[in-house]
């Protein structure tokens, strides 16, 4: 399928889009729905609802947007240096996949599902135990900064290399969100690569999701129009990281 027509289908559909061979190519050896899933192609928006462009992103700040479902948070981070390229990663069961790298001007922008692959801690409107630690800072989870940490059980992930596990009990990387930038410099999200935990997440957090999204159906609704990107300390009332 040609790139253009594939995107057209994505833009139209509100349901799960069939996996595009174009997208799979280069990420996985096999057509594996488990480690790669394309969802609606969704435009990222800033807090005012304008299309999100790289200029407004501050380096080393943790941003959050919900994707691919209305209640599943993702991190967007503009690193202080270009991300690595073509990183081989493995899920807990040993299946391999390739993380291609950052996007944007200097390939510094990366996005990951913010549901911790260890025991599913994630930012919610009340609090977040996960976030990015700038290079100059340090946390209990890891000896250096420039990492994403989960303070829940102190796992650390490397955002430059596809959120590979650096420390702690997590056994697989955070799932990554496939981003691209269009001709106008606007960011789009279109798929999830790696061990996404959405099913376990919906199962485990039913009561909380009901509280925040009224009912589980609303929480499970696929994002279709646009996803608003907010700084983590706006998305969550309190950020608990040490």
């Amino acid at each position, binding site marked *: 399928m040609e790139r253009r027509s594939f995107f057209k289908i994505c833009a139209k559909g509100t349901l799960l889009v069939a996996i595009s061979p174009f997208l799979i190519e280069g990420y996985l050896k096999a057509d594996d729905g488990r480690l790669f899933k394309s969802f609606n192609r969704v435009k990222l928006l800033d807090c005012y609802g304008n299309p999100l462009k790289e200029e407004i992103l501050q380096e080393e700040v943790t941003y959050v947007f919900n994707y691919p479902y209305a209640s599943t948070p993702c991190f967007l981070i503009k690193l202080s240096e270009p991300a690595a390229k073509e990183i081989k990663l493995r899920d807990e*069961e040993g299946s391999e996949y390739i993380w291609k790298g950052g996007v944007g001007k200097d390939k510094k922008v990366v996005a990951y599902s913010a549901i911790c692959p*260890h*025991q*599913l*801690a994630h930012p919610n409107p009340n*609090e977040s*135990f996960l976030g990015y630690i700038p290079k100059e800072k340090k946390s*209990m*989870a890891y000896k250096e900064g420039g990492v994403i940490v989960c*303070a*829940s*059980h*102190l796992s650390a992930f490397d955002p430059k290399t596809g959120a590979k596990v650096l*420390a*702690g*009990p997590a*056994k697989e990387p955070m799932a990554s969100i496939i981003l691209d930038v269009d001709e106008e410099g606007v960011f789009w999200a279109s798929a999830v690569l790696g061990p996404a935990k959405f099913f*376990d997440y919906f*199962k*485990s957090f039913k009561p909380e999701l009901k509280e925040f999204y009224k009912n589980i159906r609303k929480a499970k609704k696929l994002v279709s129009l646009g996803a608003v990107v907010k700084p983590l300390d706006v998305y969550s009332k*309190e950020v*608990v*990281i*040490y």
Partner: protein
Amino acid sequence: MALSRRDLLKISAILAATSSFGSESSKKDVDIKKSISSYRVQNAPLPKPKGPRVVVVGGGWSGLAVAKYLKKFSPKTDVVLIEKRSVFVSCPLSNLWLVDLIDLQFLTHDYLQAAQNNEYIYFNATVYDIDRVSKKVYTNEGIVSYDYLVLAPGIDYDYEEWTNGNMELETKLKSLYPAGFIPGSEHFTLKRKIEEFEEGNFVLTVPGGNYRCLPAPYERASLIAWYMKKEGIKGKVVLIDENPDITIKKDGFNSAFNELYKDYIEYLPGSKITDIDLDKKRVVTDMGDEIDFSDASFYPRIRGAKLLEIVGVAKDSAFNKKEADIDPFTYQSKADPYIYCTGDVRPMGFSKSGNTANSEGHLVAKIIASVIEGKEFKWDSPITVCYSAVSGDPIRAISVNAKYAYDKKKKVFTFKDASTMENWKGKQGIMSGKGLLEWAKGMYRDMFM
């Protein structure tokens, strides 16, 4: 009251029936024997295994992780978790519940849900023996056969040093002043003691050896002191510690004892109890202290659960009596290659904590799955992440985070990448207090979802 003819008929029928039992007492003995033997050979009411059967004994922090992840790593394996409790009650965070900082619901979880979510069988029964030759587990609900067996039954208490075989004293200590380090009724008794405490000394003890949860006695002392202070109770916690000093997170606990609970905690390190007089309510230590108490909770030394000794897979470790005699990297019993032991029964000097036991459960699941599936596995260190609350309202906590490495020369495990956060003051202490709750929620998700 006059009896009607009808009543008389009824009574005489009952009498007739009773006397017919009474008159054949020798036949009764025979019947009893017969019924016992037929009960013994009965198989447990379980479906036939659909693949290699792994029986996990003990649905605690380690056993629950083994059962879940074994099924995940090797779906063809038939997993049966045998657990004597019908409800899971968490030991971690129970100290917070003792002083009303969380509710009981936070600590209790549902075994049926865990088994359903993770596609293994939960068999609610008590294991009392195992025949290693025929690979059979004997429970009060019948026999369960296995291909591989995992023993994760946790600890038992070892009162010997205090009681010297005096069972009356041991029974009194257990029932009147329970330790509260094996969850269940002990914790309820302890909570009642705290709630009803009026004045005087509340004695708590810290045992020697590698006891279950190094920081928990200090956490408990802090929280009871916090409760006394808040409620305006004229009393104090007397913490009698067999160890020369606070065994873990020393700076954090020390500063809490001194700065928050100066009048509420009397800490007696390096003190062994030499006499307990329950009539006079007095304990004597080898440091010459005589302490009168209004109430107490005595935490004795611990040992590996007695089941291991019954099964013949136990040995005294460097720390405690009768812990699992296993290869420290594969968790396989040295006496029986089909048996694995995990959790607090391990003889390695790891911290006996829920987080450690859970991460070990993940590893043991991987090991057994790789044996069944014919795959390789790599040893990975268990992980100890342990928060302790030092006060409530808001909850303030301190924490430790460590892995382990094997020192080949000394043939022991040592801490690796260990760090602690012992500053309970300011924002950091409050953040850790939130971290403590979040830690537990994550662990419960791991075991039950």
